[in-house]
């Protein structure tokens, strides 16, 4: 578990992290934000590479800054591309396993296991310089998990991976989360993160804007109406019934497609509870139902622009 208590970090007059308090439990948590939002600073503070200027950070109950005891429980995959090119994947993971404190007696087997877990066994003997971007990502993950850390921090881990690679790494991360590991993933590709977890930390301008389950967060944003699109042959009739409901703000017909109805509500939960009853009662034939606001990107957009 990672705990930030009013953690701030500033660089001269620039505020990198501004009074952030949160608890990151076991499982997968996504750290989201635009460039300059403070994601990197937060990761560096959590991984003990920067000391908070104020407040404190605890990783598994200990202060992480320059603390080898914490580093022993921590796996970190930064977003680096061009290093260790002269080493083979095997040598790289072995070096990192050595540094992590694995004894020589178990090192070789454990390195092989980690490399196998990320699907790199066949390429482990090749130099990293010849790896594709996806292979580099995999081998970085291998060095991050080689010492079986309790906390794993990954910076853009799915970057450069092909669909199969993404699935493999996602499966691995879910597997690790299922074993009680605390996993933090920083990403700017919201769609990918959405597939991995619903637990988010949303950052902007150094502050933590929202945290928790993405759907719960969405429901808390009352000021932004929730949009729902419905496709039916009886759009006008349905609009009439929906507008009778007190929590429906508007119903608009799409100019290009008269079957498409766009509804705005400030109480999505009530709407979702009531809508099936209306459909069944009047026998509407609904061919498509969607809420563009129910995804991470929409929530993120609302929060950042708001």
């Amino acid at each position, binding site marked *: 578990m990672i705990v930030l208590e009013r953690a701030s970090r500033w660089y001269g007059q620039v505020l990198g992290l501004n009074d952030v308090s949160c608890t990151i439990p076991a499982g997968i948590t996504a750290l989201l934000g635009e460039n300059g939002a403070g994601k990197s600073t937060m990761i560096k503070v959590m991984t003990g590479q920067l000391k908070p200027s104020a407040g404190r950070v605890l990783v598994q109950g200990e202060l992480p800054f320059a603390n080898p005891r914490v580093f022993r429980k921590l796996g970190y995959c930064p977003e680096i591309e061009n290093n260790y090119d002269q080493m083979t994947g095997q040598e790289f993971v072995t070096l990192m396993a*050595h540094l992590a404190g*694995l004894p020589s007696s178990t090192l070789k087997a454990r390195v092989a296991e980690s490399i196998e877990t990320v699907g790199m066994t066949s390429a482990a003997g090749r130099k990293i310089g010849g790896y594709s971007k996806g292979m580099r990502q995999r081998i970085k993950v291998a060095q991050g998990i080689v010492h079986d850390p309790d906390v794993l921090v990954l910076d853009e881990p799915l970057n450069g991976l092909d669909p199969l690679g993404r699935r493999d790494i996602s499966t691995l991360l879910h597997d690790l989360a299922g*074993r009680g590991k605390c996993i933090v993933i920083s990403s700017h590709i919201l769609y990918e993160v959405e597939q991995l977890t619903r637990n988010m930390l949303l950052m902007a301008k150094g502050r933590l804007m929202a945290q928790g389950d993405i759907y719960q967060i969405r429901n808390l944003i009352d000021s932004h109406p929730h949009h729902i699109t419905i496709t039916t042959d009886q759009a006008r009739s349905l609009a009439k019934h929906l507008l009778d409901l007190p929590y429906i703000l508007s119903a608009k017909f799409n100019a290009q497609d008269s079957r498409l109805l766009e509804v705005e509500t400030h109480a999505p939960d009530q709407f979702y509870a009531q809508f099936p009853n209306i459909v069944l009662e009047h026998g509407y034939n609904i061919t498509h139902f969607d809420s563009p606001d129910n995804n991470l990107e929409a929530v993120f957009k609302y929060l950042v622009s708001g």
Partner: protein
Amino acid sequence: MNYDLPPPPASVGVSNVADLQYRNYEGPLISRTMRWWIIAKSGMQNTMKKPAFWVCVAFCLLPYLIHFAIYYFTQGLTQQAAAAGVGAAGVLGAGDPERYGQLVYTCLCSDTNLLSIFIIALLIGTGSIAADNRANALMVYLSKPITKGDYLLGKWMGIFLTLWIVALLPCLLLFLLLMVVYTTDGFLRENPTLILRILAASVVPALIHTSLLIGLSAWSKSPRLVGSIYAGIYFVGAILARILGNSLYGNDPDMNNTVQHFSVSGVIEGMIQYILHITLSPALLQKRDDTTLAMPIVAPLAIAAVVLIIGGIVAARTKINAVEVIRG
């Protein structure tokens, strides 16, 4: 007919599909007291993979191999001289107590040797930290249970040990050769401290090159830039020191000699000369007249050497951080 297949070998698993499921590590994690050694060893292993390194090592060994051949072929002469009552002194310079030290100096400070050590230093030192800086790899290293001190010491030792071995190995070969050929003529009796002097003298170039390159490398993200700057400091510094010595102390040979040593190469040569405790003979200076070169004044040279070494290490220590903090 028996169609039964033989049983699969033990190494083949039950399933053809690899088990990629994550497995917990149940073994221990140990606290190493010499964590820096892991980094040093890795650095040295990378060096050994570079063909250019071995070419330079060959150039370092070349003068010693030539000496080896010369002594091998003159051994017969030596024995004849000994039979005639002239002894080894007849070959190496009669009655000169510094003759063996001068020989070591010739090999250690020959142009070929100094240049080879310098090139090896560039080869392995310029990118030692600069390449890590460029790729933000320090974040990986320093997220492991090691300290900045471990990292710096590991990088430093990786270069230092390599350079020291490169400088020392040929000297040891020479020492062994001298011991084999001249022991009967009192080589060991006359030179009980020579081996210690060789050990100390060969440390000097390794110490200075390593510290300066580590210091420069930590402040850069470009190994090539580090190499260019260091080559500039090394060669231009030597020329400037020579010009300065001649123009300021043209009439004072001692001071002239000392000031001429105020460059990286000058400090290395001066300290080696001091440790071997020799006056450079006309033969060593490749002069036809009787010119000799006494030892430079040691105190300022020693101070310069310490400043170069500590300065380089402190510069590196200041700059090594997992994260480069740019203040707004």
